[in-house]
């Protein structure tokens, strides 16, 4: 496990470092406060003793002082106080401090607690206060710094333990997270690798915990689904193009051959050429439609989105197609609510609705009623083109949306089968949901959007 190559690993190390620093700071503060407190208590005690001895000296003189010092020494064995009284020549009168202990004012010195123990290598620090008396003798009162020293040791020990435990904890919890992370990531990376290597059907397993890995995996799976669909579409399209283009291309060739071999008159030649041009136009149309579908699927027109008056757009289309329907002995009816607006590409939206109407007009027999509907609902806008014609058999419904798919019965009629594929591309671009519903009888193509302008 490389700690530095993973985010949780780096984070765990970072945490350990932070905690250590914090700990050191905390411990230092405690130490400083506690030892200050100890020092104060000690120095206060020493000061009090010094003052008391001074008073004794003043009242009882040198002898009185000596007696008092001796008394204090005996009593102090347990209080941790030390004394040193020397005369003007430096000869000790009473005391248990080393010779060089005297220093005027505050100072420090060291003693060995048990003078009989030769193996004692650990001297105790003694805080001293030295006083020079009028007659030249010196008095030193000292206090045992032992407690403070012990305190330092305790704090040091405690911090080392805490430090160690914290680091251990940080690292072990980091290791657990790291391991766990790696396992989830490994799932994703392994599945991705399998997919990249060619198996598009694979999906990343979802653990059902709805955590960020699951959410990521779900999104990746959706992406893969879309890619699979697009690839399938492409495969189908290439197939279908080849298949569907054969007819007009064949016709084109026939016309040109006829022009070359059979036609003798200029009129005949002209006619063959005209028919060849018509076939060519059909091919061009198909390619244009394919190109637009391609561009739309790529999402480019989204940049040209603007506020569109949908009600007006629908009304115009109704007006335009009403005569067409009438010429076909069909009835076009509108149920268009007013004031509906939407954010999208006006041209494409026109094309979408026109396409649906034209499909109904072209695929339904005379006598059919076609209804163009637009309304707003709480969640967004809803529109549809419904007819009471022959409808689409249920088993063909899914396939009908694929490019070039033509219903079996309309394989012979005009057109190139790209209409509904275009409809789907445009509706996807605008975030519409498309549904083909049985109208009993007939077909209803409905679209719904969850966006409002």
């Amino acid at each position, binding site marked *: 496990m490389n700690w530095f190559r993973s985010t949780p690993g780096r984070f765990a190390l970072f945490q350990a470092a932070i905690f250590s620093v914090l700990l050191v700071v905390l411990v230092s503060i405690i130490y400083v406060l506690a030892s200050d407190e100890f020092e104060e208590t000690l120095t206060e005690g020493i000061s009090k003793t010094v003052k008391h001895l001074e008073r004794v000296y003043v009242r009882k003189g040198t002898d009185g002082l000596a007696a008092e010092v001796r008394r204090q020494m005996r009593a102090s064995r347990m209080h941790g106080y030390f004394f040193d009284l020397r005369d003007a020549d430096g000869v000790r009168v009473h005391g248990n401090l080393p010779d060089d202990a005297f220093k005027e004012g505050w100072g420090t010195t060291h003693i060995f607690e048990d003078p009989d123990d030769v193996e004692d290598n650990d001297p105790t620090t003694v805080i001293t206060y030295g006083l020079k008396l009028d007659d030249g003798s010196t008095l030193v009162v000292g206090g045992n710094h032992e407690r403070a020293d012990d305190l330092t040791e305790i704090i040091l020990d405690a911090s080392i333990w805490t430090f160690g435990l914290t680091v251990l904890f940080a690292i072990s919890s980091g290791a657990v997270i790291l391991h766990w992370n790696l396992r989830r990531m490994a799932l994703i990376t392994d599945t991705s690798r399998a997919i990249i290597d060619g198996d598009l059907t694979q999906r990343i397993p979802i653990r059902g915990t709805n955590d960020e890995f699951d959410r990521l995996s779900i999104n990746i799976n959706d992406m893969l689904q879309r890619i699979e669909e697009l690839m399938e579409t492409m495969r189908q399209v290439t197939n279908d193009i080849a298949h569907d283009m054969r007819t007009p291309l064949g016709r084109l060739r026939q016309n040109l051959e006829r022009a070359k071999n059979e036609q003798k008159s200029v009129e005949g030649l002209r006619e063959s050429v005209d028919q060849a041009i018509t076939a*060519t136009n059909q091919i*061009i*149309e198909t390619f*244009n*439609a394919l*190109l*637009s579908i391609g*561009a*739309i699927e790529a999402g*480019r*027109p989204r*940049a*040209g989105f603007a506020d569109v008056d949908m009600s007006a757009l629908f009304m*115009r289309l109704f*007006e*335009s*197609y009403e*005569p*067409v329907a*009438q*010429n076909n002995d069909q009835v076009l009816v509108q149920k268009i609510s007013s004031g509906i607006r939407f954010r999208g*590409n*006006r*041209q*494409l939206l*026109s*094309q979408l609705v*026109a*396409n649906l109407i*034209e*499909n109904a*007009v*072209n695929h339904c027999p005379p006598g059919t009623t076609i209804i163009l509907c637009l309304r707003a609902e709480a969640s967004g806008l809803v529109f549809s083109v419904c007819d009471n014609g022959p409808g689409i058999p249920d088993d063909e419904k899914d396939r009908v949306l694929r490019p070039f798919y033509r219903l079996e019965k309309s394989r012979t009629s*005009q*057109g190139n089968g790209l*209409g509904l594929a275009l409809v789907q591309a445009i509706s996807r671009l605008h975030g519409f949901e498309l549904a083909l519903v049985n109208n009993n009888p007939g077909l209803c193509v409905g679209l719904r959007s969850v966006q409002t302008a």
Partner: protein
Amino acid sequence: MELRGVLCLYVAKAVAHERKIMKLLVIEDDVETAEYIASGLRQQGHVVDMARDGRDGLFLATGETYDALIVDRLLPVVDGLNVVKTLRSTGSQTPILFLTTMGGVDDRVEGLDAGGDDYLVKPFAFVELIARLNALARRPPISNDESCIRLGPLEIDFVRRTATRDGQTLDLLPLEFRLLEFFARNEGRIVTRTMLLERVWEFHFDPKTKVVEANISRLRTKLDKPFETPLLHTIRGAGYVLRAMDDLERA
């Protein structure tokens, strides 16, 4: 008979005969296409200069005065879009028609935004090119500011959206009025089906039904059928034309 407000005083003058010779510049790098366009235009009697790349095109366009420019978008050295932008920035008002394979939804908008006046996608029918050039290169006899015009027996009020022929009101639906308006503004000139689809319907695709034909038929029923002389004519292989003014009114 209802009282009309201000009488429609503006009487349009017909355009000069369409066969007037135009001076055109074709900027196209594909040799075959350029020759095809040039020879077709010359057959119509026009004078055609050619440029093979954007820089030459710009040079010629700034040096001479043309009735119209035909510009391909994908050009070497300087591309079509930049040629047009540069020309417009110099203040040139020459009508420019883009002729290009780039037929995407946004490409057209890009071309028109750059300063082009029309946008024709390849492959194209020659009649389409001619019709559009005519529409572009002639100064329209009816300026867009006029609120009301008279074309022979026709009177059209653009503000009130009404039309009359020989004094009789024509009961037109909004779409039919828009159709008539478009024809009126292009009186005497051939208007192709594609032009109608693009301008009146704002369809930039080819419909699978006879939308244009059906609506023209409807318009004819209201505009021509009740009267003696038809004004709206179909030109086979090309398009439609509204001829409302007689030859006396033509300059």
